[in-house]
């Protein structure tokens, strides 16, 4: 990366300015074009659909392009209980998404296992995927999902878009 390295008179400042602008513009388009991969697993999926419906309309954020192919999506919205039987499939879908990619854990079950402390339920997808935004609720209201989406937008705005985001993936627990 250029910034932090002397090239000319004080390229540190200039480089940073250029990169900051580049960052800002790249982040701008990333935030405004987040195509979700709706991983509708359980109850939360219905609220995910509701947020695509007329009353909440996730389309306002340009995020109604629900691509069911992971290769075409940017945000993995894990909506629902991830069981152990489903866990590796979820992880595989995450792996099939091209970078840069983000994960929203929608609802209590996806975040922490929720009310299902049992032999069959993965206790939170953060045990297998790096999660960017957790949304509380069982299931979260669509407003909460939209709030989560906006928080993710804020998060992306602060990212260094020119460097590859290497999030340490949690080891399989």
């Amino acid at each position: 990366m250029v910034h932090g390295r002397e090239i000319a008179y004080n390229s540190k400042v200039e480089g940073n300015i250029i990169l900051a602008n580049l960052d800002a513009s790249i982040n701008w388009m990333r935030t405004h074009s987040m195509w979700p991969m709706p991983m509708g697993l359980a109850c939360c999926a219905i609220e995910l659909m509701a947020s695509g419906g007329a009353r909440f309309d996730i389309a306002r954020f340009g995020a109604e392009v629900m691509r069911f192919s992971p290769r075409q999506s940017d945000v993995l919205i894990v909506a629902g209980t991830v069981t152990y039987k489903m866990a590796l499939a979820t992880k595989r879908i995450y792996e099939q998404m091209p970078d840069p990619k983000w994960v929203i854990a929608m609802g209590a079950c996806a975040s922490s296992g929720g009310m299902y402390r049992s032999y069959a339920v993965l206790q939170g997808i953060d045990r297998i995927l790096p999660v960017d935004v957790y949304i509380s609720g069982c299931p979260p209201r669509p407003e909460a999902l939209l709030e989560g989406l906006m928080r993710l937008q804020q998060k992306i705005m602060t990212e260094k878009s020119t460097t590859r985001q290497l999030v340490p993936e949690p080891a399989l627990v």
Partner: protein
Amino acid sequence: MANTTTTFEQPDALLRTQQALDAAPDVPGERLTLNMGPSHPSTHGVLRIVLELDGEVVTKAIPDIGYLHRGDEKIAENMTYNQFVPYTDRLDYLAPLANNVAYACAVEKLMGWDLPPRGQAIRVLCCELARISAHLLGFGAMAMDCGAMSVFLYTFTEREKLYNLFESLTGARFTTSYTRIGGMTRDLPPGWLDEVAAFIKQYKPQIEETDKLLTRNKIFIERSRDVGVITRADAISYGITGPNLRGSGVDYDVRKVRPYLGYENYDFDIPVGSVGDCYDRYLVRLEELRQSVRIIEQVLAKFPEGPIHVADTKNYLPKKQKVLTKMEELIHQFILVTEGLKAPPGEVYFGAENPKGELGFYIRSRGGGVPYRLKIRAPSFVNLSILDKLLPGCMMADVVAILGSIDFVMGECDR
């Protein structure tokens, strides 16, 4: 030289082709094995079907379920009866109120309780509103599977109005947990019945709109008619219930055969199909919407006054006001909450007519506040078991139409 006659067997062309086909080795690669799910847009959650395709035609289908198995039955064994109510929300998450009611009724049957008329009326209202909500999503999703996206959005708009009603009734849009064993969490909020009446009034023309959008649509009919036919005998043998059974022409409805909650007092019809194809199932659902509206109108017309919960003060929570001011009630509440109600030993099975079919709870009690065994007879689980018989012979596009018309919920199927 003696004449010898040799008879050559000359089978007809069709037979020859068939014989040649039979004799040919089954080349791997001729058939395509397609893994549909567990993450696929039209498997309504996490159903997985392993399809074997010959071109576009399905030759073999192996459904694989369990991707949403959360261990509800095991959890139930570790909880008091009331603690389990929230888990019933998440069975058929398109109609949580109906699940709450079915579960509460099952435990009440174990306790030998009968709800007072007002409580029953509230529950009937809950059940029928939940049925409308579930069927709306049911055929909305079926239309979407056939490609008609907008219908789904229209039905969802209606569901949002229902969510408003649920929210003012129970405090939650979706996961209502409204019933308690022997009653409800709270009485109706003031003016709620008028809201329901207003909803019903504006909703009736909406049914007709959906009717207009789909019922006579040439493409929709072509997609659903004579597709996925479940014969009457099959439907009974596979134990299919709900609109899927009635679509095949069997007029079995738990509300009529084994009435509960005073359903025998209401006047409603059971729509039945004639063929058992996807179109029939769709029509049955559409008609059930109208019948639900009819029931709701009757409930609203003579809504009873009085208590909403059972009179068994030993086992039912005291009023919150009294808990906060009186010693006995406080202790009573503490014991009830920590130990659960005192159920007698015994076993009951209670089936309720839910939107997807007969939702049954089998409860084995050894006494005390915790069920020894609680088995959920999930209609979606049973309805899906016919898939491996239903799908072969269909085309790839029919698979999604059939899945849409069976209208299953994996939360309930896998439990």
